[in-house]
């Protein structure tokens, strides 16, 4: 008995659990408890059919940090910065959010002006320009005490390379204010470019008290239930010890979406697909991400709730379009979808809860992709007789009937999704035709075949656990730590031994307390005088140059072999791999039910199609489009020209046959 691996993911609506017990997937779902997410977590654990004593690992993804940032409900936080630069956080990059809306402003800085304090000191590129004024630090301590702050971010110029002043200020603050959280920019993100470093560090301090309190409370409850302490999913797609997460909350902001991408990568790899695009379409938003060689890709360019966070995060691109996006005819005579969403309340017109405007869901219902009268989550019943009049109303001004309008809504929504998928493929230098599409979320599998056709993708994967893929991702996630250190040098003049020593030093620190850690060395490189870097693998110093040239060509369309290359940062990804249990799928249930039939519209023509219940299918069950497969929390539309079967891990693998 290998023991159970538990993953619990807190989403906006539901808290999901996946337990992997001897290759079997146990799942659970309870409503989320936003005021204290840990209640939902414990509820889903207690309800699940897993004995606490069998649990060997417990990984957790949550939205505590994300929500605190979105709702600006973090700790009362102060900034201590270099004299003369008090407003770097507020000025940001000085660009306005909208070119032509003269009334728009950026979201307010996390730390207001009156909580931004300055100390006299200055580091420059070569080191100290002006000594740290000791008396100034004492004054700041007094002011911070009077301001009753819960957290402080210390952000000094050039601390990424010369952290001595920051460390001195940090030590003084920790000494004088032991109950206050202190984040140093040289610890959180030792990289140049002050605004992004300050912003990331500030977010870290702002979130630390809230996330720390949440995790401590959860840990107590978990301990009482006699289970191992939870590991926390980070935005980078690996889990860390709770204590590490509490110190680096800025690295946990995309905890939820990261789990989904890791889950998609795992499910796809189990079916033999390592290069995939994940496509998670829900009610109000859609997440897409590239996965290469079985690995979720990361980026350091995320902006969450208007706050740049330069820490490695799974490269998820989110668009605010989903099943609830509202369709409308604009005054110029074009059919538009979104950006407004009907949300869950009143929801699509078909919910019959007062929604009058047609949504993508209404279109899917009218076209027969969703079943008229189907129950959603036990409460809402879909009513086509509500959806159709709403479609007719919008179609009237465009001279379209209800079906044309519905087809149009789906086509316009699909175009938005295609654009999102192009951002994470072609704009990253990846050809979507080399990838399979993994569809999940309530609406993902409904649109996947059409998107695949548009992008030239030949294979669509619909995992059985599509409704709880984030939780699955947590259950099988590796432990991961990310580190970065500045290292500025011309590549041609780099001494391989010295570089090796620098990496070895990073590895020594990162591997502390870990069993058999695996290290991936990476480096940020650029052409001389360029001001943007690309990250390439750095396991082999001699290959760095060629890898950079190739990466540059893939991403930007050209390379300059005669140009000198600069090294800017060293990065280290430390992982401890967990054993990934195999997934299994049973044979089809005996006495297989014949599929039911219903009318559905494909490309303008109504046809009678097979409707398969996924629950009645098993290994080898086949489906040929046009057809519909109804999963427990999602619906898959198999377009004409597509066919496939359930494989041995339970994923429906669809291929287009031109």
């Amino acid at each position: 008995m290998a023991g159970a691996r538990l993953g619990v993911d807190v989403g906006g609506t539901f808290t999901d659990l996946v337990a992997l017990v001897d290759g079997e997937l146990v799942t659970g779902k309870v409503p989320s408890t936003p005021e204290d997410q840990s209640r939902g977590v414990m509820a889903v654990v207690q309800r699940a059919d897993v004995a606490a004593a069998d649990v060997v690992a417990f990984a957790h993804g949550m939205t505590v940090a994300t929500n605190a940032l979105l709702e600006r409900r973090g700790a009362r936080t102060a900034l201590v910065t270099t004299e003369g630069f008090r407003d770097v956080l507020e000025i940001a990059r000085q660009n306005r959010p909208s070119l032509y809306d003269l009334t728009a402003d950026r979201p307010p800085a996390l730390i207001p002006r009156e909580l931004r304090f300055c100390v006299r000191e200055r580091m420059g590129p070569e080191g100290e320009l002006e000594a740290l004024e000791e008396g100034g630090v004492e004054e700041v301590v007094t002011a911070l005490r009077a301001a009753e702050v819960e957290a402080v971010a210390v952000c000094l110029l050039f601390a990424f390379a010369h952290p001595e002043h920051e460390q001195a200020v940090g030590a003084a603050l920790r000494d004088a204010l032991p109950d206050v959280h202190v984040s140093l920019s040289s610890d959180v993100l030792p990289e140049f470019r002050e605004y992004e470093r300050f912003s990331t560090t500030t977010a870290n301090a702002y979130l630390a008290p809230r996330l720390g309190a949440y995790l401590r409370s959860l840990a107590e409850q978990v301990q009482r239930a006699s289970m191992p302490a939870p590991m926390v999913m980070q935005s980078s797609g690996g889990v860390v010890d709770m204590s590490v997460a509490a110190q680096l909350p800025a690295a946990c902001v995309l905890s939820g979406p990261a789990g989904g991408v890791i889950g998609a990568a795992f499910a796809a790899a189990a079916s033999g697909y390592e290069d995939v695009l994940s496509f998670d379409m829900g009610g109000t938003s859609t997440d897409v991400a590239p996965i290469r060689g079985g690995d979720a890709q990361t980026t350091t360019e995320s902006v969450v709730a208007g706050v740049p966070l330069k820490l490695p995060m799974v490269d998820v691109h989110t668009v605010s379009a989903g099943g609830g996006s509202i369709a409308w005819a604009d005054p110029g005579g074009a059919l538009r979808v979104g950006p407004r969403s009907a949300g869950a309340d009143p929801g699509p017109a078909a919910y019959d809860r007062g929604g009058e405007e047609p949504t993508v869901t209404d279109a899917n219902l009218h076209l027969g992709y969703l079943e008229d009268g189907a129950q959603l989550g036990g409460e809402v019943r879909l009513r086509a007789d509500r959806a159709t009049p709403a479609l007719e109303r919008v179609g009237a001004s465009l001279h379209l009937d209800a079906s044309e309008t519905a087809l149009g809504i789906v086509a316009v929504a699909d175009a938005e999704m295609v654009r999102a998928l192009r951002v994470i493929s072609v704009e990253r230098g990846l050809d979507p035709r080399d990838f399979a599409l993994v569809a999940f979320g309530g609406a993902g599998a409904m649109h996947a075949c059409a998107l695949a056709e548009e992008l030239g993708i030949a294979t669509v994967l619909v995992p059985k656990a599509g409704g709880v893929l984030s939780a699955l991702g947590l259950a099988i996630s590796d432990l991961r730590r990310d580190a970065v250190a500045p290292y500025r040098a011309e590549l041609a003049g780099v001494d391989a031994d010295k570089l090796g020593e620098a990496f070895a030093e990073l590895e020594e620190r990162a591997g502390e307390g870990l069993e058999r850690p695996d290290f991936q060395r990476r480096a940020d490189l650029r052409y001389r005088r360029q001001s943007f870097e690309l990250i390439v693998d750095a396991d082999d110093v001699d290959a760095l140059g060629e890898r950079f040239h190739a990466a540059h060509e893939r991403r930007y369309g050209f390379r300059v072999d005669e140009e000198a290359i600069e090294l800017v940062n060293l990065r280290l990804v430390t992982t401890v791999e967990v054993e990934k249990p195999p997934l299994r799928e049973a044979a089809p249930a005996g006495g297989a039910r014949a599929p039911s039939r219903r009318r559905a519209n494909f490309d303008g023509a109504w046809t009678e199609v097979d409707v398969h219940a996924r629950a009645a299918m098993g290994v080898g069950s086949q489906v040929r489009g046009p057809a519909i497969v109804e999963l427990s929390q999602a619906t898959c539309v198999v377009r004409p020209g597509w066919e496939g079967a359930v494989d041995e891990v339970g994923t429906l693998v669809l291929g287009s046959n031109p």
Partner: protein
Amino acid sequence: MSQERLDPVTLSVLASALVGIAEEAGAVLIRGAYSSNIKERRDCSAALFDAGGRMVSQAEHIPVHLGAMPEAVAAVIARDPEPGDVFALNDPYTGGTHLPDLTLVAPMVYEDEVVGYAVTRAHHSDVGGMRPGSMPADSREIYQEGLVIPPTRLVRGGEPAHEAIELILANVRTPEVRRGDLRAQLAANRRAEERLTELMERRGADTVQTAMAEVIDYAERRTREALREMPDGTYEAGSEMEGDGVRDEDVPLCVKVTIADDELEVDFAGTSDQVPGNVNCPLSVTRSACYFALRVLLPADVPANAGTYAPLRIAAPEGSLVNARRPAAVVAGNVETSQRIADTVLLALAEALELPAQGQGTMNNLVIGGADWTYYETIGGGQGASAAGPGASGVHVGMSNTLNTPIEALELEYPLRVERYELAYGSGGAGEHRGGDGIERAVRVLEPAYLSLLSDRRRHAPQGARGGGAGRTGRNALGEDELAPKVGRELTPGELVTVRTPGGGGYGPPCC
């Protein structure tokens, strides 16, 4: 050409795809560029044009770039571009704006037919001329401002025209950086053509070309509809440029705006003749500024393309400040006078429409250059307040929206030290809603260098609206000495240049 109308769905889908192509080209340009001006500050733009030279879609980066692009494409079309050609130009009198803005125009070809043009425009931080940075405060004719490039093939039939490229690079102070930036521009143009080709393969060339025409029609319909809802009438306003870089005297600007049904006319009669200094505008820049003012009046979801501007007529007297003749100097027209034109058109319309107070109305162009380096920055300031709320502090307003150069990037690259970068507290105008605050940026030079400073609103403050107070004027200083709004001079090591930018106007009477 007779075209069948597209259904509303195909139109919506293709409009999205065409914008996506321009945005991707813009992303390639920013990412691939070398100079901090393009890469860190994103002083560049990208757009798609149809085969007839009408703008179809754009990546929205810098307002002043985009409105002035049609002239560039027209100038290239007049030179019979062939498949595989890429033209460069910067001549303000043949499709350009000011010399540092280098525009690349490439015909996009599908099955041997030119189906449109890919256009990128980027501000190169040196194109030769009398001062490092090619933004002299004291130029008197265009030839002093840098190398003038009429439409010239950089690529001919797919092959680089090395001689033309070398000619350009031989005339600039930082040739290797220019070469890198040009490469990125070429890659961006190429990317746009690749993506358009793919789109035509998927959707059919005819359908895509029809869509190009229809998104233009669509924008025009939306614009005319918005104009029809505005009160007909003629509205006037006057303003001034604070010196032309040669004489420190105000240069008057007069604007008469007429709304008649679904048309808008802007007449500049009464505006100063062109001046000896460099605040003159070629007509393309004046047009950009009027486009901006119009675009501000429209609903946010109206796309910006040739159709958007079809209902706009501009009457600008030839030989005036706003329609200068060769060889007038023009470098500040693009960055400063354009701001004032947009401001003044909106000021005239404020009589009839609900509009925000004035923003800082200047870009505060700061150029410091030495033997083999050039630092160029424009500095944000206060935005005007509006009925919706206070004005933003420390942002670019009007015709620019470039990012700042990070202090740490700047000091790693140039012999400069930034001593202060903060908001000028309280510089926004008083009001029910306060205007946004300006910025104070102080830079010490560590090596001998030359300073060029092009700014405005140092004497005449940005105005408030509906009883709101004016924003505080800006101030330029060298050490303790106040400098003129437009100034150039030698700097010795250790000297400190301080620029304080204007605050925005307030909105509504201040309470109590």
